[in-house]
């Protein structure tokens, strides 16, 4: 699937967090959480964002929604009324876009306010966006809960009365409440038990079909992405190192980091025991990223050029005629650009 219309276009997005220190709280250094990302999100697709802890997935997801502001680059929203640059808008200017772009958070336990009933949490966004009548809001919240396979009566109960999977479904109901176009799911199923994870995955897929949603699906679980996503972007230390169709990524891995990541996943299939590639060392710090290719200190193929030159994310032709982006000096086929 290659839908042609982008809904969001990111260009050279940077998010650098200052590290303050000393008596005068001067900025000593920066965490380069997102460090130059180009990415198009197409209407109706499920785009997976994978990578190790700390590589910048959540920060990039939040930068898409303007929940953290990019320190460089542009995020353009493509709507029916033309293109809008989001990074320069203030809160008032962003208001109409917040409705279209929603997020479901990692942790089902902390994302709902324990002091509010479920109705209290879910009616808030509705009120913001002008549903005046309480009866109308109760009807919408009831419908939403049913849409995520919960009973309407659940709205008058409190978060602690629900299990993790139920709370995660309530979080999804809240994201859906104002009919968004795009939902960023940040580890939406990672904290859930396997049996419940499957319930939520199926729910997400059903809703997407019904409501023509676009998802950016952030996870560290590649088995889930393969099942769910149309395209997958692999991040390493604030950058995208590989990006292509899901099947292509698994069939024809180009980047050594993706290769190691795939080999490290325990697969529940006894007939597919592959060689485990054990990477040396830990994920390097985004404060002092390595010179050259950020992956070179852990890469088993690293050459001199990898230590000095930063590889660009370049397109390669796939067998099917599609595009496969990868950032590595050592790919043994010529790029298509």
């Amino acid at each position, binding site marked *: 699937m290659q839908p042609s219309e982008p809904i969001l276009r990111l260009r050279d997005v940077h998010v650098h967090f200052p590290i303050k220190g000393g008596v005068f709280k001067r900025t000593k250094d920066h965490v380069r959480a997102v460090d130059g990302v180009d990415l198009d999100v197409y209407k109706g697709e499920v785009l997976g964002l994978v990578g190790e802890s700390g590589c910048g997935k959540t920060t990039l997801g939040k930068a898409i929604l303007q929940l953290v502001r990019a320190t460089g680059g542009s995020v353009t929203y493509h709507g029916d009324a033309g293109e809008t640059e989001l990074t320069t808008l203030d809160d008032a200017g962003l208001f109409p876009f917040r409705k279209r772009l929603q997020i479901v958070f990692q942790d089902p336990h902390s994302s709902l306010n324990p002091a509010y009933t479920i109705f209290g949490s879910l009616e808030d966004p509705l009120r913001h966006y002008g549903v005046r009548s309480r009866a109308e809001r109760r009807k919408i919240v009831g419908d939403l809960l049913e849409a995520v396979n919960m009973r309407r009566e659940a709205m008058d109960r409190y978060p602690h009365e629900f299990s993790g*999977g139920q709370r995660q479904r309530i979080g999804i109901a809240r994201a859906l409440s104002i009919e968004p176009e795009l939902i960023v799911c940040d580890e939406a199923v990672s904290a859930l038990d*396997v049996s419940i*994870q499957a319930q939520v*995955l199926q729910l997400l897929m059903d809703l997407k079909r019904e409501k023509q949603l676009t998802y950016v699906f952030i996870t560290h679980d590649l*088995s889930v992405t393969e*099942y769910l996503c149309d395209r997958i972007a692999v991040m390493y230390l604030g950058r995208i190192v590989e990006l292509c169709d899901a099947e292509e990524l698994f069939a024809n891995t180009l980047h050594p980091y993706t290769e190691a990541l795939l080999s490290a996943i325990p697969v*529940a299939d006894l007939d*597919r025991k592959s060689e*485990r590639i054990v990477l040396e060392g830990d994920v390097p710090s985004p404060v002092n990223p390595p010179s050259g290719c950020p992956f070179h200190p852990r890469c088993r193929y690293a050459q001199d050029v990898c230590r000095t030159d930063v590889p660009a994310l370049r397109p390669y032709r796939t067998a099917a005629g599609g595009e496969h982006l990868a950032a590595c000096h050592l790919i043994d086929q010529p790029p298509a650009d």
Partner: protein
Amino acid sequence: MTDRTPGPDPELALSVRDLKTYIYANNRCNRALDGVSFDIHRGKTLCIVGESGCGKSVTAASILQLLPELSRIEEGEIVYHGAEGPVNIERLKRNGRRMRAIRGKEIAMIFQDPMTALNPVYSIGFQIKEMLLYHTRLGKRARHAKAIDLLRSMGIPLPEKRVREYPHLYSGGMRQRAMIAIAMSCDPRILIADEPTTALDVTIQAQIFELMDTLKREQGTAIMLITHDMGVVAELADDVAVMYMGQIVEAGPVGQVLRNPLHPYTRALLESIPVLGRGKNQQIRAIPGQTPDPYDRPTGCQFAERCRYRVDACAEMPPETQVSSSHRVRCWRHREFMADAAE
């Protein structure tokens, strides 16, 4: 030696028989473990798998006598087969001398969250050396050297320097490796690992697994690995026990259980996860419903109310049935499933 009756399997490291551990709260009783039996062998990995709350951690805590307050082993036995012959752990005092000597020295444990097990106010090296001081006769210098050796063997870079550092300076993966270093410091016969990699990245998880495989191969350590990830089971287990609501519903060699699952819960678990390499068209099927209230468990088969194959008989508790010398299952209908598989 004259002809003695054959002793216990020489490779046997631990055997648990019909273990019942109950937890009491608000005058109610949670039968957290309700008749659990299994063996752990030297040089083998037993994986215990099951969803949250099924009793995996309580199993580990029972073996080490680290149970929470207001809980107790009500029935059954836990026999540790050490160098000096079998010991009934359930009869030892929780904090008696014998139990403290076994805990850490002979049966070591690594936890899900290394930060709760490592003491933040002592250096990593100090914590390893404490273990060695308590459990071995090594002198001061020898302990220091051994601590560095252990960190090096766990793949911690610059061990001479790192040995002096405090836990907060270690990354998550390094902390977990330090925990394993502490656990392995006294060459335990058994290593119990309770979800040791759940909080870690897959690349770091791969490092830890490599390490555990090496221990098993080179030291003959018996490993009991608790996980909820069927992928981990396929990757590391020699034997697997599938738990549900305080009971083992199916157990056996990993090849038999994963290739030919006989309990509907094992099947459901395997069908509910996307498997890497099977692409977008694989069918995953959620397990309907939820686990019952642990304080108000059904009297019959615990899985019955979520089971596609439920029949009237399931209102009564099915017995554990041995279907081969090493494969057992707790389900009234296992014969039909076996016949199906044979076709």
